[in-house]
């Protein structure tokens, strides 16, 4: 099954080409193209409703694309003779019958591929569900449900993992667990593709990012590059005991100045050096002068701001990169 030239774990490439999916009038995925490489964790980032889950369902053959294609190792998911050995997946909505026990759920999946019962017990141990494996899934917490999802995804020892919001509902310990697990799976050479709307989580887990908004590609880059790009034109943070005077002096030079808190300003449109010179000329004491690098959150907000499907009410809008009152 695996070509001899590769190691057992080397994952294939996921290739999405001009993928489009319409549900009636609504375009959920719009001419999307990107690749997911093996050996690293690739994050799939976008606000809720951006089309992440739809894209994943299209890759997994659950929905049929309106046009374009999504392939794994050059093949459609529908053509796999042993899909569980190729791809392990967790979907956002729990895809498990609530009336069945975790063990029986996994056993039924395993039997479609002739996978042994011993492997079922093994993955149950890997995710730490051995104490509740015989209980009905309906009584599981969200976190236990996610662990069961991970167990199902690992069942066939696949070379590709596709996970939709795997950290959802996990406690901090669980998040650390899944982060470590995914990184290790990627290090083994597998292709790991996970979606999230939680930017901080992505920053700690993923190396590369595919960012989408309203079904369209916004960025396909490394996490570092993504943050750097979004940081251009970012602010300089200035701490001064004479903040009011400094504010007036900077505003006079056409800078945009936000008061963050008492004695702390955020200056847009001037470099740190320019601010220092103005302060010297005006005889204003500076206690601190720091360029602000945008966090992944801010970068994300800035790049996807116009593509968020459902805008929050204006009072909830992030003010960090905008003019604060």
């Amino acid at each position, binding site marked *: 099954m695996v070509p001899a030239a590769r190691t057992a774990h080397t994952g294939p490439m996921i290739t999405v080409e001009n993928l489009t999916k319409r549900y009636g009038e609504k375009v959920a995925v719009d001419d999307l193209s990107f690749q997911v490489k093996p050996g690293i964790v690739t994050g799939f980032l976008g606000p809720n409703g951006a089309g992440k889950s739809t894209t994943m369902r299209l890759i997994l053959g659950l929905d*049929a694309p309106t046009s374009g294609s999504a392939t794994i190792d050059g093949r459609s998911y529908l053509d796999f003779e042993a899909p569980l050995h190729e791809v392990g997946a967790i979907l956002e909505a729990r895809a498990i*019958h609530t009336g069945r026990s975790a063990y029986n759920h996994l056993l*039924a999946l395993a039997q*479609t591929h002739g996978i042994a019962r011993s492997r079922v017990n093994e993955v149950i*141990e890997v995710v*730490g569900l051995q104490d509740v494996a015989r209980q009905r899934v309906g009584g599981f917490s969200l976190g236990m449900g996610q662990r069961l999802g991970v167990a199902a995804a690992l069942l066939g*020892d696949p070379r590709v993992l596709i996970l939709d919001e795997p950290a959802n509902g996990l406690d901090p310990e*669980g998040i650390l667990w899944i982060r470590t*697990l995914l990184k290790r799976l990627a290090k*083994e050479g597998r292709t790991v593709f996970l979606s999230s709307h939680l930017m901080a989580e992505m920053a700690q887990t993923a190396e590369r990012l595919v960012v989408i908004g309203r079904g369209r590609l916004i960025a396909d880059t490394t996490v570092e590059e993504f943050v750097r790009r979004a940081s251009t034109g970012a602010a300089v943070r200035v701490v001064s005991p004479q903040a009011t005077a400094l504010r007036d002096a900077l505003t006079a030079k056409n800078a945009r100045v936000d008061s963050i808190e008492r004695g702390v300003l955020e200056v847009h449109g001037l470099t740190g050096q320019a601010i220092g010179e103005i302060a010297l000329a005006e005889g204003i004491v500076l206690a601190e002068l720091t360029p602000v690098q945008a966090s992944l959150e801010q970068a994300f907000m800035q790049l996807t701001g116009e593509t968020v499907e459902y805008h929050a009410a204006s009072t909830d809008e992030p003010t960090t990169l905008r003019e604060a009152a």
Partner: protein
Amino acid sequence: MSATSATLDTPVRAAVTRGRVTQLRVVRSEWTKLWSLRSTRWSLLAGVVAMAGLGPLIATFQMNRWARLDPGDRLHFNAINTSLGGYHFAQLAIGVLGVLVLTGEYSTGQIRSTFMAVPKRLPVLWAKAGTFAAVAFVLMLISALVAFLATQPILTQHHVQTTLGHAPALRAVIGAALYMAVLGVFATGLGALVRNTAGGISLFAGLLFVLPGVVNILPTSMQNAINPYLPSVAGATILSGTHDAHTFSAWGGFALFCGYTAVVLLVAAVLLGRRDT
């Protein structure tokens, strides 16, 4: 959740035998799924109790009231129909469970796990229908046999009993199981078409139980023309001990019911491959 720290050291990869998906393996999987749900066990139990128990119960009731029965009722009394009378109730249990076999997966989202494991999808439909039909056949054959054999001694009270050696009796007992098996497939197909539990059960009950009532209020000439074609009437000819001018023969009616089932299943199969989940 507590048992997490140790699991990081557990190897994710072990020697996994890499096999491909086959129809037989999907059948095994569906067998596990069928029996690992409480709703299955209760529904099947209800079907078995009804099929095996109602016949003898009705027979006891009839024998106790024999002297007071209408002469016409006594004349038309049929030992086969009395002993297998439980099918009226059992078909509800089998039908509802048949619908649930697929709609239960759609309502919980399980269908996505199922189709990710078997992306070609059709093997799942065949396996579900086949497994359920086999289970229904075996359980209903045993239940019908128990009903028949338990009823006859009761009927000896007024010498209206029959025996399995009597040709229509054997056909009816086996026929009851055949009818239930095909009915299970019929219901599974309806569930696959509608993909919604409430809708599927309504459709099933509408076709099997409501339609005859509607036909019943039509003028007699129309009733006689339409009645034999009703799924419930056509299907049940195979387990009936009596036939009048307005029903098909035992095997003819059953063949028509099999035809209906084949149509439902084929339409379901075509749609199953095309629809998004």
